[in-house]
């Protein structure tokens, strides 16, 4: 049964990798949606059902639709993008490899405790709600303010500039 995890993990990584290497933006988006689905599945495995569904609703249902929207709107599919030339790719490869090595090194050095606490309900909506509204009420309010600000910002960003009259009326 624990094979599920490894299968899902492999699929997740493949999907994520496909996001990176797909030359077609729409395919990238769809692979990303798949990635999110797989990650949600991981959440369900971890008994974090609430977060799994929130992940789907927020990322797959809202954020990715926005991406899809923008890509379709800008009609970017016309020109299939060429990747960066070899220099940036080499730089990127080196830096990513470096960070990977570092992560590996720190992972070797880290003491990851293997003992688990038997609270299976920590991912349930009641538990999360309690913690959220008891300990993290203020950050949540701040989040709502953040959304308000983001909303206003977007409206302002995309507001059409009021056009000036071509000629000033003569007095």
């Amino acid at each position, binding site marked *: 049964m624990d094979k599920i995890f490894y299968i899902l993990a492999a699929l997740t990584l493949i999907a994520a990798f496909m996001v990176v290497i797909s030359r*077609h933006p*729409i*395919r990238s988006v*769809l692979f990303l*949606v798949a990635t999110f689905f797989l990650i949600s599945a991981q959440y369900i495995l971890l008994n974090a*059902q*609430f977060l799994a*569904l*929130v992940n*789907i*609703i927020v990322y*797959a*249902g*809202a954020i990715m*639709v926005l991406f*899809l*929207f923008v890509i*379709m*709107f800008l009609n970017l*599919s016309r020109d299939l993008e060429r990747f960066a030339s070899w220099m940036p790719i080499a730089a990127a490869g080196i830096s990513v490899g470096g960070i990977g090595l570092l992560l590996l090194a720190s992972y070797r050095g880290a003491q990851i405790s293997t003992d688990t606490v038997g609270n299976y309900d920590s991912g*349930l*909506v009641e538990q999360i709600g309690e913690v959220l509204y008891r300990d993290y009420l203020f950050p949540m309010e701040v989040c709502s303010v953040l959304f308000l600000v983001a909303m206003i910002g977007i409206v302002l960003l995309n507001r059409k500039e009021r056009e000036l009259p071509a000629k000033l009326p003569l007095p």
Partner: protein
Amino acid sequence: MSELTFKIIFIVAIFGISLFVAMYTTYAERKLAAFLQDRLGPNRAGPFGLLQPLADGVKLFFKEEFIPRVSDRILFIAGPAIFMCTALMTSAVIPFAPDLEINGTTYSMQAADLNVGILYLFGVVSLGVYGILVGGWASNNKFSLLGAIRAASQNISYELAMGLSIVSLVMVSSSLSLRDIVDQQSGWSWNIIYQPLGFLIFIVCAFAETNRAPFDLPECETELIGGYHTEFSSMKLGLYLFAEYIHVFISSAVLASLYFGGYQFPYVSDLDPGLVKTLLGGLVMFAKTGFFIFLFIWIRWTLPRFRYDQLMNLGWKVLIPLAVLNVLITALFILI
């Protein structure tokens, strides 16, 4: 019969029922439309034209498979598939009947009793947009793209009001599990009594989410020819059309479960758990669902189509404020 086997059988059954209901919804739609327009409707295939849906299906299967040359082939095929899948996935959390107890084992008449069932409903419904968007975009057709974008923005907009109306429902029932919500409404104590405004908002949103008239702008023939499925033919078109009817069925079922007590009915609720109760409950559930399907069809053939800006105005400027107001009122009542 192990639980898993039962689950598999049950899921297959639900799929079958969904498809069957959807199939005959098309029949009902045409019959009712004919009735409302003082016609006869389909009456050739079988008695009263009852075999008409089958005939339609066969016709669609044998039509020419046409994929435009300039389209994105994979996505063009993926679009209707995604749409159909998401439509069918929705039924997983709907409790169709009371639990059945035979020989001490309990058989749940529900594919999955998620404790966050409503969220699941939401997630899957919001995914339905992908089917439309992908299909519409892959057609590489102006009208399809416009239809797809209309559908997507319509769905997203109305999801908000829908979510808010459900928030107040959840506040009343204090559970996200559909099973719990249905169980709470035994007898006559249906949620419609506590949430009349929420119900109204929900049903309007349900019409918009299913892209049904009067909100069927994404496929508005007069403006966009056929909307997102302009370029589709054969069974791919069939999937789109069919999925829409499945959406109607599921929406009706959800409406029945959330606001009209699902399988709960006076007398039925008081029965002891058992085969009788399960059967009666299922009957009640399907009766209520049938009523809502009828409502869907009735409204489609009665009301004229909205204009797109009217639709958006209704969604953002009327329904969302109303839903927020509803949440506030509910909170007030809960406090008192």
